[in-house]
């Protein structure tokens, strides 16, 4: 199989997220950065599929040069190739992002052949647009289902892949003809951590760059702001066993009864 996983570099914040003085960015001065969590699971899914079925997995990211850190992190857990679609680092709207990435994927496929599967994250941890993968899949003319928590090639008809999605009552099963696209969700797997050897190997991997851009779409960020009520206070439901009714009220409210 040939698999492409797309990842986004995002800050790894704590319980409170600070905003820069110009109100345009998350203040990441003292924050680490990570692959957006759904996409981290996408990388793991790609690595597992390659381990099971052979082939080659490529990871691609669009962003500033520093995104190389996340690309190498993906290589360190088993992705074979990495591609950066460089930008100036400013936030791009979903249409522009999708257009640029579509162009980049097309360029890559023209050079190296089509991907059987393109794995997106359900949504990015920061901007949360819920649409970039769907736009790209549509532009490429490929089937796409978001919110996937299971992938299976063995149980599918030839040339297809089974994709599971959780709903309240159980699991929906989709069977997509490949080449296909999916948006995966955290919980599909437990992403492995890099090993030291994997990390050292990733340092030696070559970074490919594909220049691609899109036009700005109709959605524009004006500024970031903190939500009006940040409820950080712990609500004490009570003391000792007498708190049981209040606890069960909460369980009911959360719908886990």
């Amino acid at each position: 199989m040939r698999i492409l996983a797309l990842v986004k570099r995002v800050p790894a914040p704590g319980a409170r997220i600070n905003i820069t003085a110009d109100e345009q960015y998350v203040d990441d001065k003292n924050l680490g950065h990570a692959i957006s969590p759904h996409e981290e699971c996408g990388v793991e899914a790609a690595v597992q599929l390659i381990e099971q079925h052979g082939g080659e997995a490529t990871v691609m990211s669009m962003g500033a040069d520093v995104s190389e850190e996340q690309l190498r992190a993906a290589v360190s857990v088993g992705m074979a190739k990495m591609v950066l679609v460089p930008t100036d680092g400013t936030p791009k709207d979903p249409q522009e992002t999708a257009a640029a990435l579509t162009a980049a994927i097309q360029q890559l496929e023209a050079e190296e052949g089509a991907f059987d599967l393109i794995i997106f994250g359900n949504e990015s941890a920061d901007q949360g647009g819920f649409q970039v993968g769907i736009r790209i899949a549509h532009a490429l003319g490929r089937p796409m289902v978001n919110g996937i928590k299971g992938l299976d090639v063995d149980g599918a008809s030839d040339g297809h892949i089974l994709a599971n999605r959780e709903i309240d009552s159980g699991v929906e099963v989709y069977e997509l003809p490949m080449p296909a696209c999916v948006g995966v969700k955290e919980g599909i797997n437990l992403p492995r951590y890099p090993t030291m050897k994997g990390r050292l190997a990733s340092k030696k991997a070559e970074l490919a760059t594909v220049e691609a851009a899109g036009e700005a779409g109709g959605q524009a960020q004006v500024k970031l702001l903190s939500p009006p009520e940040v409820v950080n206070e712990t609500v004490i439901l009570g003391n000792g066993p007498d708190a049981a009714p209040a606890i069960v009220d909460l369980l009911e409210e959360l719908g886990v009864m």
Partner: protein
Amino acid sequence: MSEFPSKANVVVIGAGIVGSCLVGHLSRLGWEDIVLIDKGPLPNPGGSTGHASNFIFPVDHNKEMALLGVQSANQYRDLDRSVDSGGIEVARTQERMNELDRRMTSAKAWGVEAEMLTPAEVKELVPFINEEVIMGGFHCPTVSVVDSLDTGTLFRNEAMDKGVLQVFANTEVDDVETVDAPNGQQKVSAVVTNRGRIEANHVVVACGVWSNRVANMAGATIPLVPAVHQMADVGPMDILAETNNEIGYPIVRDMDTFCYERQSSGSMEVGSYGHRAILHHPDDIPSNEEAALTPTEMPFTQEDFDPQMETAIELMDFLGDAEIKYAINGLLSLTPDAMPCLGETVEVNNLWSAAAVWVKEGPGMAQVVAEWMTYGYPRVIDPHVSDIARFYPDERNEEHIWARADEHFIKTYGIVHPAEQWVSRRNLKVSPYYSRQEALDAMFFQARVWERAQWYNSNADLVERYGLSEREVEWDNRWWSPITIGEHLNMRENAGLFDLTPFQVFEISGPGACDFAEYLAVNKVCKGVGTSAYTPWLNHDGGFHSDLTMMQTGEDTVRIVTGAFDGGRDEYWIKKHLPADESVTFTNMTESVTTLGLWGPNAPAILGSLTDADVSYEGSPYGSVINIEVAGIPVTLFRVSYVGDTGWEIYTSWDNGPALWDALMEAGSDHGLRPTGMGVYAVSGRIEKGYRLMGAELESEYNPVEAGLARPKVKAADFIGKEAYLAAREAGDPEVHMVTLIVDDNTDSQGRKRYMQGGNEPILTADGERITDSHGRVSRVTTAGYSPSLEKMLIMGYVPAEMAAPGTQMKVMYMNELFPCTVVGTGSAFDPENTRLKG
């Protein structure tokens, strides 16, 4: 939770290992009404304690660190929050093997069980190690792993159970208030927090990496900087998981790669001190809410760790295939000289520092501060290298702290020579002769901030004249030159001119000055204008606090002269005890008065040629202080000697210094006068005479009777420590005596001549047994130096009374080998009758 109080006797800020142990120790010492606050939650408030690797290697070359490490390890053991995992420091180079021999020597000194292992023996204890990359190991079975958070909880609970402590977590300090105190000083008065304002008699800053920021709120400084120590947890590994234990294999310190591997349950924690120094400003540390983990577990900067991974895999191949599950840039505290900051801050009375302390010394150092607050000085150990008062103002600014932390971080696992000099922040304070000394190609050593010429390369011809040579072993030769021996012999034959400008010169004046001087000093100070006293200052328990000279320079004026290493501590001590009636004024004269030393058999002739004054022994007897003119320059002449030859300390104004230097050098040119460095003044000249040095022979654990500095009579006036001093005198022959020993043969097993460095090498019985007294004080080398006159190594140290008799045969350990030595006695090995001082 109880209501936040508006008043307390003591407020301790910081509930990490230090603050928690401190409240426990305060409660044991009878303190009540203590409030402990922390801005984070409990039991892990988010400081350095929470991510510490929690192991204790009890061997250190430094006495305070070693003994407080052992002390702390025992406190953890007493609470059953400790496991003896054992630990091995492995060597990949011959230089490190030599260092491990030095570690064996320190282990012997501090009574820590240790052995050298072959690579195969290391492999037996650590089956997953690649023994092919190591040359050997230093194994210490009592290396322990502790639970620092739980220990903190137990100490807090102990104090709370007694009803003397209230604890408030999630309480942020917004301000620390002070009020005016006598003598223009400030005293701490209250702590303002987000839960309210609390008035306090004492405030202790024990908040680790945030300590300087909190001290600054009160106008005080605690010179430390938060710095990164990288740590990665990799696993799981079956062989580790199978131990079913937090730790089942010895900790391995891979010293030459600045890394350690410490089992942590089923995985391995790889910690590094090998990356670049990564320093942060306290304001840049995220809050508990902002931090992804805790504030001091900052984002891992992988590229800094990459080189460490390669060498770690080399040592333990299985590390390469295990997953890196958790990796942090953990913050810890670094100070400008790599030692902690303990004691009362010099800027604000009753504001205490218990900072820059790691988990391995936490309980012991907390005890030090608690005792300090209780007794006026610690009892468990002499704290002078940790005393926050040791820092001069130039050592307290950010530029200095950062530069020094940047320089010494990599030395955490380094091999640091006892005489090793700093590269950064040099020439902070230079004497008026600096340009002349530079022209003479002086080798400068730094005494805290002061540059001092250790020897002058312009004297290289003396090496040939006296037939001297380099030392055989590079380590012994490092930071040393045979020129210093040449300068010594020339002084004994002719004369030497010493730049003593780094002397710290203070003046106390006013109607209460003489009474105050007597209160500070053991010996009588005010015996008339023009008299002097060489005297110890004691703490309230009768141990040494200082050792210096005092001169009555006027009816109501006393000059105090102390060493460059002690100026900060002594200035603090004076100011702390200034009479509340403001009858005494303190002035620091250091940078307006310069001192030259002129000693040697030709010194009288040289000085005599430049003055009409009577500078004969009759006109200027030993200890006298007279004001005369030398080459037309007004000077204060003080007949004294710290090097065993006749001569003077000559004081003049800073401006007149260069002219005085030039006049003396010119007059001395016909008398063999040479500029002579501190190698002679502080080491060879001094040790030949057995003169004691504060911080070496003289520490608070010893008293003047033991040190041989008790005078026949005790003055009538009261002084600090007098009661204890009298008791020590009345007790008769002390248990230990400070003696000089001569090393009979300094040839090692490879036939090489070796030269002890004075780094706490153990002095042993003739049978090689470690010697301790009833207080647990160990016999060890306090100073070592080569005697050019006797052509032998000399060492000094305290030995039991029964071994203090001249001729007693003993052994000294150096680099893990034993050398025979013989007690000279409590006096001088050279010119014991002091005939040369009278010339």
